[in-house]
């Protein structure tokens, strides 16, 4: 803080190209001590490349990176860490087979090649407790943690390295809002100590809550940098997409009178993680599942798709009993279930195989479909405007949002009656989100029952006709219409009774 005008990290005239693709083009960018600098942009706008350039993962094709005013050349992340640039990556960088303790100590200060010293551990415990991680034991294996718990550990792992510049790249994407608030408190505390924070998120309300300055990127270039609050929501969106998006969410539709139930759960349970749960999705409806992480809502989706052994109760689809024996039975036309898994990179797609091969994988086991006939995928791909360099290229060549489009098209080719989605828009850019929302609404109108698990309460409010909030394995509240508000969702997620009745108090 002695030289407030000297940026901790800055880049000048940086261009980074991968073959013919230019990811960053002549970018100047500064990050000052004691500020939270948010970076906004669609997927593929160059945000992650920017972060990777600053954190030493990628070397710029041309241009210079400065650390505290001095030009530096990073040979790798270790060099960047040596000058205090610590990055928490979008792809989690924990080693699954090691324990939390071992992961925290990997490369932590004071633990060199020799004996592992636990000096940083008390601090790590304290930080973890501050962000609702009391239940995460140091002895647990990382592979046994949920995605949200991994992100909590990642946050702590970055913080115990005493960063001068902390880069958070989609670091809170799997966390629910109450944990996010606590992480933000930690980040603010760091900022007040003079740490510079670079922050990428696709959630506007998070950026509104946290950022001091905002830079918008589009097509590898910085469009503008401004103070938080100087520009309104729609202006920012216009900067990001370069075109006007009036509505992020499609309008809700008043359900037809006499709409038939498509999916009916009757006392569906998987003890002890899911308590007996009953609800109905009628034609034209999008039903949301919300709540804190690990309250049973994602287990419920897996159970409906038949991934769990020993589920109880009944699933009715169009009035007939659905088998619970597994994905093969679930995807047949007489059942018509489709499941979009939470982790699209690992569970939804085979990264090394081509887009075509990935598209065909679900339709292959259906005798009534010709999986190699690409006309069955085309409508969804066109509808979602998949951007690709050729359908024979590996799916890993696509950006996250486009990968999700492939997962959707793969399942929509089966014309499912019920579409189960586990957080389908996590870490996806605004434009793709809008496309997915519009598609889901369209499918609902065509009679597909849509069950959407989401960690983004804007989706639960604006996209869903009704949202069931889970707590401790069961539905604690079902919100619809006027009741479907952020306050009620958060209140119900924390199982605070009757938030609606005390609304005035909560506001005060």
């Amino acid at each position, binding site marked *: 803080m002695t030289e407030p005008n000297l940026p901790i990290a800055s880049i000048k005239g940086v261009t980074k190209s991968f073959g013919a693709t230019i990811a960053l083009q002549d970018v100047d960018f500064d990050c000052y001590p004691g500020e939270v600098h948010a970076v906004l942009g669609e997927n593929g706008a160059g945000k992650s490349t920017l972060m990777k350039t600053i954190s030493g993962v990628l070397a710029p094709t041309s241009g210079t990176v400065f650390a505290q005013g001095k030009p530096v050349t990073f040979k790798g992340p270790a060099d960047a860490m040596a000058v205090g640039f610590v990055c928490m990556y979008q792809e989690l960088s924990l080693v699954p087979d090691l324990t939390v303790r071992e992961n925290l100590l990997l490369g932590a200060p004071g633990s060199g090649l020799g004996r592992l010293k636990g000096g940083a551990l008390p601090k790590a415990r304290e930080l973890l407790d501050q962000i609702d991680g009391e239940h995460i034991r140091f002895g647990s294996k990382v592979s046994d943690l949920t995605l949200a718990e991994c992100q909590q550990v990642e946050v702590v792992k970055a913080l115990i390295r005493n960063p001068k510049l902390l880069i958070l790249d989609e670091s809170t994407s799997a966390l629910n809002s109450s944990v996010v608030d606590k992480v933000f408190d930690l980040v603010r505390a760091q900022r007040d100590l003079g740490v510079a924070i670079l922050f990428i998120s696709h959630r506007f309300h998070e950026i509104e809550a946290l950022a001091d300055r905002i830079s918008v990127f589009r097509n590898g270039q910085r469009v503008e940098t401004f103070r938080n609050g100087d520009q309104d929501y729609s202006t920012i969106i216009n900067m990001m997409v370069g075109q006007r998006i009036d509505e992020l969410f499609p309008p809700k539709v008043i359900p037809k009178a006499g709409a038939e139930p498509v999916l009916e759960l009757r006392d569906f349970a998987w003890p002890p993680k899911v308590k007996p749960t009953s609800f109905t999705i009628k034609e034209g409806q999008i039903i949301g599942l919300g709540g804190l992480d690990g309250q049973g809502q994602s287990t419920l989706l897996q159970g409906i798709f038949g*991934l769990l052994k020993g589920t109880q109760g009944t699933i009715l689809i169009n009035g007939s009993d659905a088998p619970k024996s*597994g*994905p*093969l039975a*679930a*995807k047949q036309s007489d059942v018509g279930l489709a*499941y979009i*898994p939470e982790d699209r990179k*690992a*569970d*939804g*797609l*085979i*990264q*090394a*195989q081509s887009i075509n*091969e990935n598209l*065909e*994988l*679900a339709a*292959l*086991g259906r005798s009534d479909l010709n*999986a190699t006939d690409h006309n069955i995928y085309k409508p969804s791909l066109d509808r979602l405007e998949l951007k690709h360099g050729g359908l024979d290229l590996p799916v890993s060549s696509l950006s996250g949002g486009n990968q999700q489009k492939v997962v959707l098209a*793969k399942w929509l080719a089966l014309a499912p009656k019920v579409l189960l989605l586990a957080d389908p828009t996590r870490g996806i850019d605004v434009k793709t989100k809008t496309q997915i929302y519009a598609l889901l609404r369209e499918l609902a109108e065509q009679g597909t029952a849509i069950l959407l698990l989401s960690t983004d309460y804007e989706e639960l409010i604006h996209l869903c006709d009704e949202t069931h909030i889970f707590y401790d394995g069961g539905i604690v509240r079902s919100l619809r219409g006027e009741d479907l508000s952020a306050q009620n969702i958060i209140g119900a997620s924390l199982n605070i009774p009757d938030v609606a009745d005390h609304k005035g108090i909560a506001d005060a």
Partner: protein
Amino acid sequence: MTTLVKPSQLPAWVNIESLLPYIGTILLIVGASFTFPQVLSIDYLSQQLQIAAFLGILAAGATLVILLGHIDLSVPWTLNGAAIVATAMAGSGNEILIACAIPAALLFGAVVGAINGLGVTILRIPSMVWTLAMNSILLGISVLNTGGFNPKGESSATMSWLASGTVASIPVAFLVWMTISTALALLMMRTGYGRYLRSIGFNERAVYLSGVSTKTVVTGAFMIAGVCSAFAGVMLAGYANQAYQSMGDPFLLPTIAAVVIGGTSILGGRGGLFGSIGGALFITILNSILSVMQISDAWRSIVFGVIILAMLLFQTLRKRG
């Protein structure tokens, strides 16, 4: 001889990884011909094709299992067991038993493969451990049956013909090998089963979540591998006119080496049968030329190991570059 069969219609299969063993084979033959011109003779080459067939059939089955990211270490005693079954039945003198000798041996291989597959898929025991245990159990059963002596029996005429016969001066064994490889390559390329098999090697969870019975696919692959091992056992018994203890033991590591030299990733997913054919040819020719050179066994082993390491190193470096 490298152009005899291209089991793939897709050029993607004929990549540098899978061509490498063919190039290596040609270099070996050309190099050796300066000192030993007889290696260019039709007799020598046709004999090599015949010998390579035993390894090649084993490698074809092993390719499927390795593409899944699994491994089958029960190859030696599946082969041996099938050879014992076949020779025992063929040597019985009973017409019906003689006629059933080969099918029974193949059935034996399929059963062993099914047990392997079920152990790996249902009991979830790593294939490396499970198939090693199976190999040991089969060894034990065989010793109990024969009292540790070479089993009685002899090969049938069909078995001998499969191993040593010729059609239009092409070894039958080679034709059998090519038929099996082509059939499996078509299975891999043209059927949903093949697609599943390759996909599972990359990401089993994603395939399962796409609504595929991955257990069936994996068990099927182990059964095919078991039948291939059994077929090699039948042919080897036909070649030696008998079954003998430990006849399969020298084949285990060369089988895996042939598959990996052929460009199939030991971690699963990448690779194919075309490369494995080349791998089997390369290893057979290498072995043969090393013995023609009449160097000591110790040096033969060292040179064999070094050359195989060099091939693998080349494959690894190429993938990185």
